[in-house]
């Protein structure tokens, strides 16, 4: 496979995954806040701020009043902002276009439909009444895309590259969502007598990554900070957990690098090292310094991505 095309496929996977997480974050936060148990979590400003935090534009000044329609437009359909969903989808399709000969007709057609759905969506409808419809469609269409990727592509290098992109992005987005909701939990502390460990925000967090039902089945208890972090970071059976994503990344890098003992400068080596680190962690360690943990793992994920670029995408 061409190095340039591999790079495009990797990013196609990343952008598809990213658009899904952003869309779901908007949906879950907005709708769960409507009947949240305390005043702060119910407040529109709190939710809008949280949305901006997730897309990497945190507000330094809480006194700025955010306008709901602006924020929704910017994150959803503002084509001039790199973090918007519409741009993620555009980038995903552009990357798919340049690798059109390698991906299946079925997958391409689905990406193309996805793209046309997003670019034709009326801005007015979206900001006034279409938030639910739009975001649910995004998450469903990305689910179709994942199905097409899995079911209509040969499970070879092309597939491995796309899956590397998807899983690295998933780990990154899950961490970012944890970070955003942790930040919310800290802010919501004290209102309604909440302790951070029992905050309502943990439930929202789990819903943001579609893991609430799985978590309930596993623990059969109301989520706390420890159980949530444990589940979303360290449980290998949770398909949205960080360790699950890292395990997937490890599995797919093995398709590209078949050596039994990878060179110490290789991507495979770095991934094994990161994987090893989180395999033997426990949630209390993470909770001690959650900020430090988040910074460290985000950095590790960036390093893996850079290493891949050097090893496979540039020549």
């Amino acid at each position, binding site marked *: *496979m*061409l*190095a*340039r*095309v*591999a790079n495009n496929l990797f990013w196609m996977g990343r952008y598809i995954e990213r658009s899904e997480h952003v869309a779901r974050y908007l949906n879950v936060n907005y709708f769960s806040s409507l009947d949240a148990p305390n005043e702060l979590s119910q407040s529109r400003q709190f939710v809008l701020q949280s949305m901006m935090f997730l897309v990497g534009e945190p507000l330094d000044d809480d006194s700025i009043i955010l306008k709901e329609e602006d924020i929704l437009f910017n994150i959803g359909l503002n084509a001039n902002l790199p973090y918007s969903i519409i741009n993620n989808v555009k980038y995903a399709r*552009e990357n798919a*276009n*340049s690798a*059109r*000969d*390698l991906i299946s*007709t079925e997958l*391409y*057609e689905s990406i*193309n*439909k996805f793209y*046309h759905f997003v670019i034709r969506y009326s801005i007015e409808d979206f900001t006034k009444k279409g938030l639910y419809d739009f975001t649910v469609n995004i998450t469903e269409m990305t689910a179709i895309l994942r199905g097409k990727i899995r079911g209509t592509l040969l499970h070879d*290098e092309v597939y491995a*590259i796309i899956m590397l992109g998807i899983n690295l992005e998933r780990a990154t987005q899950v961490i970012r969502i944890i970070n955003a909701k942790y930040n919310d939990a800290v802010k919501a502390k004290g209102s309604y007598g909440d302790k951070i460990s029992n905050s309502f925000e943990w439930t929202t967090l789990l819903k943001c990554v579609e893991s609430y039902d799985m978590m309930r089945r596993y623990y059969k208890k109301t989520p706390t900070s420890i159980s949530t972090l444990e589940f979303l970071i360290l449980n290998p059976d949770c398909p949205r957990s960080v360790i699950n994503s890292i395990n997937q990344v490890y599995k797919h890098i093995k398709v*590209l690098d078949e050596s039994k003992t990878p060179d110490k400068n290789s991507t495979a080596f770095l991934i094994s090292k990161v994987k090893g680190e989180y395999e033997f962690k426990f949630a209390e360690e993470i909770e001690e310094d959650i900020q430090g943990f988040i910074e460290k793992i985000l950095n590790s994920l960036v390093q893996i991505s850079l290493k891949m670029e050097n090893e*496979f*995408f540039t*020549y």
Partner: protein
Amino acid sequence: MKPEVKKPIFSSYINNPALFDEVFNNDGAAKNVYQKLLDLYGNHSIQDYVQLNNKAKSSFFNQGITFQVYDNKETQEKIFPFDLFPRIIDEDEWEIIERGAIQRSRALNLFLWDIYHDKKIIKDGIVPLDLISSSANYLHQMIGVDPPGGIYNHISGTDIIKHSDGNYYVLEDNIRCPSGVSYVICNRTALKRALFGVFNHYKTHSVTNYAENLLDILESVKPKGVDVPNCVVITPGMYNSAFYEHSYLAKAMGVELVEGRDLFVENDFVYMKTIRGPIKVDVIYRRVDDQYIDPLEFRADSSLGVPGLFAAYIKGNVCLANAPGTGVADDKAIYTYMPKIIKYYLDETPILNNVHTYHCSRPNELKYVLEHIHELVVKPVDEAGGYGISIGNRLSKAEIKVVQEEIKQNPRKYIAQPIMSLSVHPTYIDDSESFEQRHVDLRTFTLLGNKKEFVLKGGLSRVALKKGNLIVNSSQGGGSKDTWVLKK
């Protein structure tokens, strides 16, 4: 409530007896080969047809078989207009077209070899030297170069029309980077999705075997010493209007689609940059024009090409299809010599007719042209895509003057031909929601390899959608039809 009246599909078709209609005779009766098809389409009302037509359109759109239009800074995607009423070519007529297309491709190949080597045809006085030496497409860099397998025009697109006399004529040969073959395949797919029932009543040749034949042809011209050649398709990139076709062909052949920046040349061998390091490339189906393939040899400002590619080609280490420099032979001035070229190299009479052509470079013919512009089509010899063509009977007196002046300025640049009356075919027109006569041509695709040749049984029937228009190129608002070649 009154029930909606459903009009049969051809109820308002107007048959102009001055035109050659491929489906209906002058008395309004359908030609034999179309009778069954008309019965089947007759089962649909025009409303049903509109619905089917819309479905077919969205199928093209969702598959991303589109081209880009720039309008007010916004990019819009449009589909190529496609007509759901197919054109049928029966087996006897097709046999003539196929033999004729191969004959022309072979003759052109021998001609190219000759003019880049011994130039016998010039020495023998058949083709004048200045026609070659004055052509911008004659590449002196190709003189004495032996292309692998001895083939120059691996892929030829021959534009053929049916004249009002019922005979086929060749309008032009395209042997640089002829495009359109992917639409032949898409048109068939779209028609099958929309009206699958009609295929049960006709034995139609498949068109999906093009890619496998193309790969065979490319592999047949591998460089010396290569066992299993590594073939690729090179594209100018995803913003090129034919990118869909490039990616389709690469996918259908199962080979890599590369851009210039994916390749490099080392010690006169060509490599592509893959995730596992460099891999040698042996045969390149290039969809990048001559002038852009190698900045070291041709246009230095080209970022689409590969530095050193041409040197590797001259050394015989890589094959380019089509060979550089083929453009000299699909020049519209060379076209007029085709009957002589066929006779000279193959000692055969041309199977397909040539349209009589006046060379403005010859003084007596120039005089005739200048006096008869109103009944001639004047074409620049070196433009593609239907640009620069003027059709005499549509010009005002002032416009005729302009054309006369342009020709006088640069006679070598122009040829003229009698206005040919292209046959017409019933075509669905959106605006009037009915079928109307529209002019149609046919582009056939011929492949020539080392001891192999192939003509795609089918082709691109291009329709001029504007009423009365004779120019069918898609860049000039043309649509297309699925084209059936019937089995014996």
